[in-house]
């Protein structure tokens, strides 16, 4: 167990990562983007909403608007960053010709994978948790329960972990970082857009046959393509705003399965990557 934490690859990866210029540039840009979205959500929640509904806007409405805006913005931004951190981490060893040194040491392929995975995920978590104070702003306005924050954060961590695992698999398969990163972006795009398009087609078909969804929303088979959409676990939380999406567990389990499968394939590939050197 202690080897999971004291894995030398984690220390090496973090040390190298934190020496790069992007180690301070990315968090700065990330927080600037989130600050902008919080300001936008606040302005939209107070000014625009007030004009639209012609009444005093409740603090709870503003709080919920800020919360949802930040939660969705951060998962979208982090989904764009996850391939950069994960898909290049094994290919860079191949490009720099340092992988042979790792593979002929006493580190096993799972240990190398784990070190790369933890380092990639930790940097994303650094970004995620650095935005928590902004999410906490929503508590000042009310309308958001602490449990919602916990579930949204846990859900985001799970999705990011799965995407990092997919990125590492791409990194184990390809020789060049650019190819691995492009492949990982392709997978993220497929999960985000293609699943939504399939859902849209199924939804239209279901509505034309069974009429509008009503309170319960579309049945599970119509929602099924969305289970692999990175935004679905956030949509399907106990939130009245998106009440029709009600299968968060299915989505969480699918992302966990995707992560585990990618991890297993990446480790297997890493074990055999001596021929790529």
């Amino acid at each position: 167990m202690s080897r999971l934490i004291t894995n030398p690859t984690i220390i090496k990866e973090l040390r190298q990562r934190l020496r790069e210029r992007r180690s301070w540039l990315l968090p700065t840009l990330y927080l600037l983007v989130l600050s902008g979205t919080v300001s936008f959500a606040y302005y939209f929640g107070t000014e625009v909403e007030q004009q639209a509904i012609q009444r005093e806007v409740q603090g709870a409405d503003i709080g919920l608007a800020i919360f949802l805006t930040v939660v969705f913005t951060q998962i979208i931004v982090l989904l764009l960053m996850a391939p950069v951190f994960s898909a290049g981490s094994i290919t860079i060893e191949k490009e720099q010709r340092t992988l042979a040194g790792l593979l002929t040491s006493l580190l096993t392929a799972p240990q190398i994978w784990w070190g790369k995975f933890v380092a990639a995920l930790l940097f994303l978590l650094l970004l995620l948790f650095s935005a928590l104070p902004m999410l906490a702003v929503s508590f000042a306005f009310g309308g958001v329960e602490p449990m919602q924050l916990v579930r949204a954060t846990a859900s985001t961590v799970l999705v990011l972990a799965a995407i990092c695992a997919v990125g590492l698999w791409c990194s184990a398969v390809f020789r060049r970082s650019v190819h691995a990163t492009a492949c990982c972006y392709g997978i993220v795009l497929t999960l985000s857009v293609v699943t939504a398009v399939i859902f849209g087609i199924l939804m239209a078909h279901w509505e034309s046959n069974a009429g509008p969804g009503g309170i319960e929303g579309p049945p599970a088979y119509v929602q099924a393509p969305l289970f692999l959409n990175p935004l679905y676990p956030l949509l399907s939380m106990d939130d009245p705003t998106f009440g029709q999406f009600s299968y968060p567990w299915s989505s969480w389990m699918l992302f966990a399965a995707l992560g585990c499968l990618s991890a297993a394939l990446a480790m297997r590939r890493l074990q055999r990557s001596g021929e790529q050197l």
Partner: protein
Amino acid sequence: MIEVDALRKTFRGGRGLNGFSLRVESNELVGLVGPNGAGKTTLIKILATLVPASSGTAHVDGHDVAGDPRAIRAVVGYLPDVPGVYQDMRVGEFLEFFVDAFRLKEPRRTEAIQRALELSELRNRTEDFVEQLSLGWKQRLLVAKTLLHQPKVLLLDEPATGLDPLARIALREQLKSLHAEGVAILISSHILSDLEDICTRVVFIAEGKNVSEPPASTVSSGAPQAVIQCEIEFRGPKETAEQAAAGFPGAHILKSEEGFLLVELPGGAREASSFLQVLLHAGIVVLHFDARGPGLEERYRRAFGEISR
């Protein structure tokens, strides 16, 4: 220490190993020589557990390469043909990472780092980034890293490539001292003069197979026969020396100067001794007599001259 038997490795491109066999004892420093694409790197990669063999067996220190790769890694130090370094790490951090990767515990951990710094003469540069080191110093660092876990066997694939003459000399001295300490070394290189200087034995490989060395006369006449070259420094008339040398059966004078003869004889040490006696009986005052087999370059030419062409 290393036992390779009928090793085969097939790649999609076609090149690999084709039934190569080798045995290296613990007190040997063996050079692996052959043209490009002969299978040297593939053999070393198989022994380093990076590439699985298609068939045949390979054992290092009694462990099966395919069956027990972890045990192999614990006893083998591997230096690839184009080794990479983490440019953005400091020298000390680089060694610390690999000492941890080899799971060395205190006090062995600190000792190993100190020994590596001593060996590479980088003690005063532990805070320097690896990218600041010259190629020669990087190679020293890599050799030191390869030796961190005190391997019993060293597998070196073209370790002198790109090194300046001084760095090459330093590397040779380092390998000689490791050999003297009892480390078995298998080294692949195209720099034959280096191999000639340090190796106890040289093994030829081509097209993935062992190449036996044809004796000198095979190249010209086809009759398999060993040869030996004798350098003689003498005092006395050149003509008398030439006459005596030419009278020895099979002797062939390669070079003749005032006070110096270079003669090629069929056979080995015994024939050289007889040849010396013939010279002495002819009244030649021999000041220096040196009989040796053909140099590695000549042996390489004999082994691969035909193949290369």
